[in-house]
């Protein structure tokens, strides 16, 4: 199978090398290195204060690193050091090839404008200008994330938490990014709403062959969505590997503690 062989030989999309961040004497993130490949879902797990959100900010170029570097292979195939990108280039990357799904949808959406505009805005930012096509594409995406088209002109502030989160996902995916960062995307949702969202994300990720870096403290989320997992503690990656391997056969004391702390369903 040709496409499968290609999968084994392709180049990484994002490479982190010895990434560190300290605030004065406090090291929030120490010496993190890994490579992420197209279509690969990497979960970063650990408790509050482990440095996982700081790492996500470093990887997405929202925070300057104290040491190390992040390189990203642009659509032209050339890997670029994120620190050398200009502000305009970085913003363009964020609008096109990257998505960022926040835990709080209010951070990733414009709450007072319509759902259709929230999705359409990303398209306009990349140069779409035909109103009809923008609206069609926006409707199409609302359907894909299971939002009733009848609600297209309503603002997300009138939406439930689960709908807002699905709208945020539509807004991020409409430009067909290759890499999406997610920060606790199911964090504030009820369990039943979580399950629906996870299922949706899981199928979209596979369908669109998305690479995802997802920060979560919920190991069930990591198990359902990710191929690989990195366990963080005290700003360091203490264990990493295939998700089912790390969760079913954890090696480090801290990972064993995390795994054993899950309540059986």
């Amino acid at each position, binding site marked *: 199978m040709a496409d499968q062989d290609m999968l084994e030989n392709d180049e990484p999309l994002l490479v982190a090398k010895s990434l560190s961040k300290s605030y004065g004497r406090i090291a929030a993130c120490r010496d993190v290195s890994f490579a992420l490949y197209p279509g690969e879902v990497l979960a970063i797990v650990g408790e509050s204060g482990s440095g996982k959100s700081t790492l996500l900010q470093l990887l997405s170029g929202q925070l300057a690193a104290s040491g190390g570097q992040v390189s990203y292979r642009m659509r032209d195939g050339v890997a670029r050091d994120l620190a050398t990108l200009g502000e305009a280039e970085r913003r363009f990357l964020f609008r096109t090839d990257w998505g960022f799904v926040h835990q709080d949808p209010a951070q990733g959406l414009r709450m007072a404008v319509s759902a259709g505009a929230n999705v359409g805005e990303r398209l306009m930012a990349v140069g779409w200008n035909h109103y009809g096509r923008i609206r069609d594409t926006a409707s199409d995406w609302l359907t894909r994330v299971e939002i009733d088209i009848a609600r297209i002109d309503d603002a997300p502030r009138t939406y439930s938490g689960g709908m807002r989160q699905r709208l945020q996902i539509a807004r991020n995916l409409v430009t067909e990014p290759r890499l999406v960062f997610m920060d606790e995307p199911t964090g504030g949702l009820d369990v039943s709403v979580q399950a629906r969202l996870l*299922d949706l994300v899981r199928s979209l990720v596979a369908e669109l062959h998305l690479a995802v870096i997802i920060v979560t403290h919920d190991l069930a989320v990591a198990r359902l969505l990710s191929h690989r997992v990195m366990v963080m503690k005290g700003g360091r990656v203490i264990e990493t590997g295939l998700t*089912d391997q790390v969760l079913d056969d954890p090696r480090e004391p801290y990972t064993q503690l995390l795994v054993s702390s899950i309540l059986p369903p």
Partner: protein
Amino acid sequence: MIAMIDVANTNKTFTMHLQGGIELPVVSGVTFHVNPGECVVLSGPSGAGKSSILKMIFGNYRCDSGRIGIRHRGALVDLATAEPRQVLNIRRATIGYVSQFLRAVPRVATVDVVAEPLIVNGLARVDAQTRAGELLHRLNIPERLWQLPPATFSGGEQQRVNIARGFISDLPILLLDEPTASLDAANRAVVVELVAEKKRQGVAMVAIVHDDEIRHQIADRIVDVTSFAAAA
């Protein structure tokens, strides 16, 4: 004949850090191979490490030392040291695993749960669903259940869905962890038939089966796991 699975001198010990770091030796010196078209059954009492060996061959458990040789697309790969993404590729193209329990994904219809391994390998959805239907039919899952998620099915039904999902692919290696445990006689017979078909197609299999009669029907060779007992 070139072996599909070649396990050599593999050791596994669990270190339980939360219990004061006690060590639980599972197996040591595990050595055996499986040829194409052959079904090797692991035997030994509960706790002897049969499931752990199966999980190591699938890359679900790590091994502390030794080699898990897998013939993947014509080349021998050591799964014990392979990168995560290579393990995933090997699972997609080479090794299938039928676990004891179905890990149900919420909201996905039974027919799609079964068809998924074929779709992942590039077969068109309709064709994959047709083949899934044939297999579900053989395993006596009534058609009215196919569009429902298997989460609410009985234990035996879930296991048959699991078996269908495991047997649908044309993967050259299959690992079977008690595939007939909660099945009635008619469905056990279907599984025996499916195993025989896989043998004729040259699939290499490793199985754990407690039922003596089934073991007798599917095993070409028996590997006694107690000979790999780790020195406690």
